[in-house]
């Protein structure tokens, strides 16, 4: 009798798992509907995302090409030390008049920008996260977007983009693309995306390191809890 009941429980649990599996399989089918975006995203070279030199390059590119219109207003210049930049290096990329403790803000006037581009250029502090989708990470989107500009005379700026059709932003990196080989340009854009990825969540690297320690602690705690439980329950007949 006892064994029979045990089996029932196991069967119930198994069918519970099976139920989840069935619904997930079912669910996977229409997943294609959720995917969006007119072009398939190119994946950013993965090693760039944890490469400090790449992020530093990206920071320099950002300050010279992007900061004119886009801010990283959640972030202070001094935090660039996190990716290994020295105080001198940070000061070298800061716009004149800025202090290390200042937030990275654009000097562009939002109201004027709206008149010029149709919309004020967005703050890019968390863009590497917000552009994530089920078709790719936000960094893949940035990496693809900045490499898919093409000339289009019908647009006010003369530029259009395959990833973001009808984008208000002109091809700011055009002179860089013109003067570099395709591989060099890809690398430059990859570095920029890696920097924006860091900016989107500065805690992401320490988070994973701390996470490993926490998991190790919990593994030991789990074993102790399991043995403690076993010792107590030995008495229950």
């Amino acid at each position, binding site marked *: 009798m006892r064994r029979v009941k045990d089996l029932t429980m196991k069967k119930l649990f198994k069918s519970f798992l099976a139920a989840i599996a069935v619904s997930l399989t079912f669910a996977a089918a229409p997943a294609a*509907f959720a995917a969006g975006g007119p072009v398939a995203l190119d994946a950013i070279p993965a090693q760039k995302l944890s490469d400090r030199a790449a992020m530093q390059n990206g920071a320099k590119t950002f300050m010279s090409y992007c900061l004119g219109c886009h801010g990283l207003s*959640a972030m202070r210049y001094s935090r660039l030390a996190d990716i290994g930049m020295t105080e001198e290096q940070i000061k070298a990329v800061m716009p004149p008049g800025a202090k290390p403790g200042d*937030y990275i803000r654009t000097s562009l006037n939002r109201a004027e920008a709206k008149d010029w581009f149709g919309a004020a250029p967005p703050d890019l502090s968390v863009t590497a996260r917000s552009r994530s989708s089920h078709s790719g990470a936000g960094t893949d989107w940035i990496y693809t977007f900045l490499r898919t500009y093409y000339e289009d005379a019908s647009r006010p700026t003369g530029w259009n983009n395959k990833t973001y059709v009808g984008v208000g932003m002109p091809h700011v990196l055009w002179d860089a693309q013109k003067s570099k080989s395709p591989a060099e340009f890809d690398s430059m854009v990859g570095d920029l995306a890696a920097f924006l990825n860091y900016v989107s969540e500065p805690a992401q690297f320490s988070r994973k390191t701390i*996470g490993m320690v926490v998991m190790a602690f919990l593994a030991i705690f789990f074993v102790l809890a399991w043995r403690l439980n076993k010792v107590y329950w030995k008495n229950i007949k």
Partner: protein
Amino acid sequence: MASEKNVTTTGLLGWIDTRFPLTKLYKEHLSEYYAPKNFNFFYFFGSLAMVVLALQIITGIFLTMHYKPDASLNAAGVPVAFASVEYIMREVPFGWLIRYMHSTGASAFFVVVYLHMWRGLIYGSYRSPRELIWIFGCAIFLCLMAEAFFGYLLPWGQMSYWGAQVIVNLFSAVPLIGPDLSVWIRGDFVVGDATLNRFFAFHVIAIPLVLVGLVAAHIIALHEVGSNNPDGVEIKKNKNAEGIPLDGIPFHPYYSVHDILGIAGFLILFCAVVFFAPELGGYFLEFNNFIPADPLVTPPHIAPVWYFTPFYSMLRAVTDLFTWVMVASAGLGALAVLRARWPMMIKGGAIAALLVLAITFRVFDAKFWGVVIMGGAVIILFFLPWLDHSPVKSIRYRPNWHKALYMVFLVNFFILGYLGVLPPFPFGQAYSLVGTVFYFAFFALMPIWSRIGDFKPVPERVTFKPH
């Protein structure tokens, strides 16, 4: 006064016990609360829900120290509320950890509560004498949904904003008072600063206060009647000479050490998400919610967070076609009443009421009935103790086809949940309609189907294998 009480403890504890029932409470709720010894895996989730509640309250308190419910734009053109969340993520020491614990905790709360409810459903834990435990539990679930809904507006991202907009707009479908009602809820004609501030007030004090009170009532009611178990056997029917249930064991230490094991297992999964996948692929933190709220830009696809999606699917299933299904159900109900052996007066009244209802199904907007169906899907749970007429409590002793039916119910709930994440598409819409009808039919017809079939004999004592 003190002399009237029989206090056996001495020293400091004795001093307290003459003034406060500390030892009495400890015994009643821990050391001499006898729980059935045959609890299984599903019985971890009650204590885990308490753990998550505590986590949410503690992390929530620390978040309010830096969060600012302010919809105005800062110098960089970012809403202050949105920017304050990013401030917590970057500048508050370990703010990211507190925030991820809170955001993951919201989803974890629903994971454990859904499993806890499923446990109650399959083992008949809502049956007499545990109806009030179940009702308090359903009220907790409602509060939890309200708490999650109010809290989701606070980061002031696009999904926060438009999710609130969609849900509050639903109230405008209420006949006559709808438009005024939705303005009253928002405190403005659109979701704005007034809405953000009142949602903050509800999220941080009003709802948690009710929630904690209900949890206390839930546990007091549980300890009054005793826990059910996977066999659905009343352990209080078999007591020893001292009046202790033969199949009962003291909650402390046996279930306290057991629950510590459960907490350890839970924390491993919880921390894996917090530290390694806090967005969980966009299901725990939606990607679009990293775009600051913009009242002028409607996102192409507005999806609620995963825990609301089964009910969201039901809401979307209610189109003009569905109102005909509702008319047909009212008609079937009227036919059933016609055949019932009730007094003529009651019969006539019931049939008339159903026919009037059938007309209103077509007269009022389908959007309004969508809201009713979505709310009804939760409200119907309250009535479960009186819908189930099966002679046994636990699914273990029910006919096999009952077990199959519960599995279909579960799979249906999962599918509705998944469809609720996706933008509507024809097959999904068709399925949602069938799935919604099934969900309601499962409960509405339970008084009939739950009696039918070959039930297995229920043992006198619980089944337990020493481990």
